[in-house]
């Protein structure tokens, strides 16, 4: 009996071994983390909790039939968007794929506008024209939100190109999932970025599954995705995406490479999503085991880990954590109420925002007919 018990524990540990104290401390000594004050740490923690509660609320709204289409939630990966975006300076930009809610909140977008967008309401951040996969906030240096796997990778490269062209000291953090690395345009982007020495950081959020296909079933060499950078003579690194200190340390090095040397980096951060590829993923517990999901959630949840660390550091108390939790729930619930109360866009809106020249009459000498609706 005892032998059997031991075997079970080992199997559990093999699925998702718990992080030891050394692992938990990873990145803590990096200057970007050493210099973090208590408020800064609380802000990181709060933002992660806010993302989690927003998405849980959105999932509920979806189940209530308030939201349709796709909803790719970020639950389990929050430390990456929050860690990376927390280091943004004036000329640093962000672009990502369709799992974009976390980045949107991390750059400071308003949850009311985000939730309303999911509901397809006119008060949404894209006036109900983009939906879950297409959040944008150029005023916050956030360029989406892109629905086609790897489609954002040359765009992010182009944002970096524009920064360099204009002589600005900045970079573009271009996020993607592990599914993106097998698209041709990703490789074209890497080549261009290194060839032209562009200040871009490609962040692979490797959650192990491109939709329902595991890494081993999709990548010929799956031990390291970042190592593909070698083929382009590009700097690369890997890190534990569950640990926000480590995320910040790793991305800080890449940002410095971009800012100081105008060079790209391919950074792979290991992470995990508890739920399906999208909410409509009926097989979320079929292409991987329930045990794997449960064990990862128990041992590697980025919010739980950071909470433990902050409690140890005495930056956080259970009372403060409860307050953060309550505020986050209230914010998400209020966002859902706001979205619910908001009107749908009027029919006339269908043909607005297609062409600049149509939306700005008189400023442009276009002559011909642009729409063909009759």
């Amino acid at each position: 009996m005892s032998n059997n018990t031991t075997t079970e524990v080992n199997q559990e540990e093999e699925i998702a071994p718990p992080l030891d104290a050394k692992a938990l401390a990873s990145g803590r000594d990096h200057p970007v983390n050493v210099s973090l004050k208590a408020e800064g740490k609380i802000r990181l923690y709060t933002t992660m909790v806010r993302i989690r509660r927003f998405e849980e609320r959105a999932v509920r709204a979806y189940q209530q039939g308030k939201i349709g289409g796709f909803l790719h939630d970020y639950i389990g990966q929050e430390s990456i968007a929050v860690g990376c975006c927390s280091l943004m300076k004036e000329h640093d930009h962000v672009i990502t794929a369709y799992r974009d809610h976390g980045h949107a909140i991390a750059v400071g977008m308003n949850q009311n506008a985000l939730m309303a967008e999911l509901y397809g309401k006119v008060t949404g951040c894209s006036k109900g024209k983009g939906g879950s996969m297409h959040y944008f906030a150029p005023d916050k240096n956030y360029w989406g939100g892109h629905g086609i796997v790897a489609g954002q990778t040359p765009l992010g490269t182009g944002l970096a190109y524009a920064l360099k062209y204009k002589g600005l000291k900045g970079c573009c953090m271009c996020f993607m999932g592990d599914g993106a690395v097998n698209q041709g345009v990703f490789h074209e982007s890497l080549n261009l970025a290194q060839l032209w020495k562009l200040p871009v950081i490609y962040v692979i959020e490797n959650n192990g599954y491109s939709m329902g296909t595991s890494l081993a079933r999709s990548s010929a060499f799956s031990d390291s995705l970042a190592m593909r950078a070698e083929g382009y003579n590009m700097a690369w690194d890997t890190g534990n995406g569950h640990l926000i200190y480590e995320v910040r340390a790793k991305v800080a090095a890449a940002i410095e490479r971009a800012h100081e040397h105008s060079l790209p980096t391919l950074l792979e951060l290991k992470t995990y999503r508890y739920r399906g590829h999208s909410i409509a993923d009926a097989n979320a517990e079929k292409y991987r085991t329930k045990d794997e999901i449960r064990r990862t959630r128990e041992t590697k949840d980025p919010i739980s880990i950071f909470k433990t660390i902050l409690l140890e550091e005495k930056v956080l108390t259970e009372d403060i954590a409860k307050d953060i939790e309550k505020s986050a729930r209230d914010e998400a619930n209020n966002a859902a109420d706001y979205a619910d109360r908001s009107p749908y866009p009027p029919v006339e809106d269908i043909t607005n925002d297609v062409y600049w020249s149509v939306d700005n009459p008189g400023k442009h000498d276009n002559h011909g007919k642009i729409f063909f609706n009759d």
Partner: protein
Amino acid sequence: MPLITYRQALKDGLAEEIIRDPNVLIMGEEVAQYNGAYKVTEGLWERFGDKRVVDAPISEAGFIGLGIGASMLGIRPVMELMFFSFAYVAWDQMVNNAACVRYMSGGLINVPIVIRGPANGGTNVGATHSHTPENQLANFPGLKVVCPATPYDVKGLIKSAIRDNDPVYFMENTLLYGMQGEVPVEEYTIPIGKADVKRAGTDITLIAHGRAVITCLKAAELLATEHEISCEVVDLRSIRPLDEEAILASVRKTHRALLVEENKPFCGVGAQISHLIQDKAFDDLDGPVKRLSSIDAPAIYSDPLEKYQLPNPQRVIEAVLKMI
């Protein structure tokens, strides 16, 4: 007015815009040190340097996407596709990103990019290098599609395209690059979306874009001298925006329309215009609208047959004689 080639007029337009706006840059395969595969950009790299005239590797999806991303931050890239046939490897970038970003962002993001290059058959290179995707690209709201036929038009329109805040896909023709025409020395632009009556006439309207305009003008000349038929030739100049008023005004005058294009017939530009005419000028017609396009097959390699596959003056004349 000086007589210069289509190629020279285009190059002059590009150079003037590079000088006018520091955000304008040219990028494409072989555009800089090689002087352009079709010499459109010849001398520009020497004149303006590495920053403004940039050689890209053969990587259309990558560099077109890069240009779109850069344009979102206010750069105005003029991207050369060596052939518009290569657009298909950059299709996701061209139709998902460039065409939809403004809309999906609720109007927050603009994509002031120009993608230009030759889009034509008739050069004996086989099907993969002979595509004419103007009808396909004009099907995407958010894009503008321009097809200039003369040196005067190509210069005025490329300048407008570069200044436009929407993505403009600018389709040229290798068989027109050497064609000469009068181009003023002083600066001018031509608004995008305005058709041009290239020849006035009374008996029938020939509506065309790109090189088919030149084909129609040759046919009109022969129809006038040999058959005493007066053709009006309307050059669309842009497919989207489409100058409906110019089309309808001419049809109301001549009461007959032949739509000529080097595109394939199925779901082609002519199909759209044919619909427009029957919808808005039905009572003005003295006969059915007819279309003449490339013969419906991939572009054939064999030289004499390829010349026959495309609309040519003889085929236009035959079509007109059947209508009158």
